[in-house]
C-alpha cells in the first residue's frame, strides 16, 4: 500500500510538471512552479543529508584507520568553510577561501587530467583495431587543425577544420544526441508510468 502511494505521488507530480511545461494553462503552470520549487527545497535538504554523511563517515575514519589525518583535515575544512558560509555570506573571508583554497586545488586537479589523459591516449592509440586507427587519425587531425598557427600559415586549413566539425563530427554527434534524447524520453516515461520506481529502491 505504502509503495503504491509513493508511486502515485511520483507519477502525479511528474505528470503535473510535464503538463505544466507543455500546455499553456496558467493554473497548471503555477502547480508546476510549485512542484519545481519543492524539488529545489528537497535537493537542498539532500545536500544537508550529504553533509551529515560526509561528517559521519569521515568522523569514523578520523578515529581509526589509515587515513586519519586526511579525514581530520576534511572535517576541519568542511566545518570552517561552512561556518564562514553561514555566518559571513558573501564576505571577503569566503572569497579568500574560494580564491586561494577551493579554486587552486580544483584547477590543479583539472591540470592532472592532462597527464592522465596522455597516459590514456598511450593505451588508446595502439593500432590494434580499426576503431583505434580511426580514433588516432581523427584525434591527430583535429588537434593539428585546432592550432591557430595552422590557419595563419595555410588559410585553407581553417576551412578544412570547419568542414570536419560541420560534417563528419556533427553527423556523429547529432546521431548520438538523437539516440540519447530517445533513451532519455523512454527512461522518463518508464518513471512516469511507474514501470521503474527508483525512489523506492526497487526497479
Amino acid at each position, binding site marked *: 500500500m505504502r509503495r503504491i502511494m509513493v508511486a502515485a505521488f511520483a507519477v502525479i507530480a511528474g505528470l503535473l510538471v510535464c503538463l505544466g511545461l507543455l500546455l499553456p494553462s496558467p493554473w497548471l503552470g503555477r502547480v508546476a512552479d510549485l512542484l519545481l520549487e519543492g524539488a529545489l527545497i528537497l535537493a537542498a535538504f539532500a545536500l544537508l543529508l550529504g553533509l551529515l554523511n560526509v561528517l559521519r563517515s569521515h568522523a569514523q575514519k578520523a578515529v581509526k584507520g589509515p587515513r586519519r589525518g586526511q579525514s581530520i583535515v576534511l572535517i576541519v575544512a568542511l566545518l570552517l568553510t561552512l561556518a564562514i558560509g553561514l555566518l559571513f555570506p558573501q564576505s571577503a573571508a569566503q572569497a579568500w577561501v574560494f580564491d586561494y583554497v577551493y579554486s587552486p586545488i580544483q584547477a590543479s586537479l583539472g591540470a592532472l587530467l592532462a597527464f592522465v589523459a596522455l597516459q590514456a591516449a598511450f593505451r588508446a592509440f595502439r593500432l590494434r583495431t580499426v576503431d583505434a586507427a580511426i580514433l588516432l587519425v581523427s584525434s591527430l587531425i583535429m588537434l593539428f587543425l585546432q592550432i591557430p598557427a595552422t590557419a595563419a600559415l595555410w588559410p585553407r586549413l581553417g576551412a578544412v577544420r570547419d568542414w570536419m566539425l560541420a560534417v563528419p563530427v556533427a553527423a556523429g554527434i547529432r546521431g548520438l544526441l538523437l539516440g540519447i534524447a530517445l533513451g532519455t524520453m523512454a527512461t522518463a516515461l*518508464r518513471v512516469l508510468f511507474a514501470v521503474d520506481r527508483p525512489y523506492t529502491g526497487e526497479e
Partner: protein
Amino acid sequence: MTPLVPLLSGNTEPIALIVILILGALVALFTLRARGGGRMALRPLRVYQRLSELCSQATESAATVFATLGSSAPEGSGMASAQAALMLLRFVGRNIAHTGRPVRATTCDAALLPAAQGTLTQAERSDGLRHPRTGSQISFAGPEPLGMAVEAECAMADDAPLANLMVGDVGAEALLLTEMHPGVIHYAGSDDPADGALLQIAGDETVIGEDVLSGGAYLDRPMHMGSLVAQDTLRVVLMVAILVGVVAASIGLWG
C-alpha cells in the same frame, strides 16, 4: 558552417507534445506486451554481458565492487543517467550481497545519495540479507566531480576492489581513476557525448549514448524490453520521416 535549411524552426512545443504522446503510447503498449514474457534478440552489448560475469567473479574471489555514481541529479535531466547508475548498482548489489563484501559507492550529487542508499538496501534485502546495511557504504564526496575522484581513489586504494562501475554522469574525473588504478576493471558509461568520448578512451568496458540508458533490458528487467522496442519503433519512424522530408525538400515540395 554549411547553410542547411532548417525546416522545423520556431515553436517546437506542439511537435514535441505529439512526439511524447506517440512514444508514451508505444512504451505503454510494448511494456504491456513485454509483461507477457516475450523477448527479442538484442544487439549484444559487452558491458552488460561482462557485468554478470563480474558478479560471479566477485562472489568467487570475495572481492568487492566499487561504484562511482557521478553527479547525475535525479531532480533534473540527469534523472535518466541517475536511473542508469542505480540500475547497475542494484544489479551488482543484488548479486553480490550474500558474499558479505558490500558494494561501496561514492557520489557527488547529494540527491543521488539517498536514492542509491535506498537502492542498495533493497538490493541486499532481495538477496536474502535480513538486516541489510542502511546505506552507510555509500558516501557523498562534496559537490565537485574531481573531489569525488579523490574519494573514490582512496576507497579503491583501501579496498582493492575487483571492478569500478562508473556509469551515469561521470566525466573527465574518470580518467584519474582509470590511470591511478589500472588493475581494477573499469566499467564506464555516460549518456553525454563529451563525457562518453573520454570514457571510451579511458574505460575497460565502455557503453555510450543511448546504450547507457537501456541496461535494464540487458540485465534483469525484462519489462524494459517494452520501452526498448518502443524506442526502436520511434527510431525507424523518425528515420523514415527524415528520408521522406529530405526527398520532399530536394524536389521542392516542401521548404
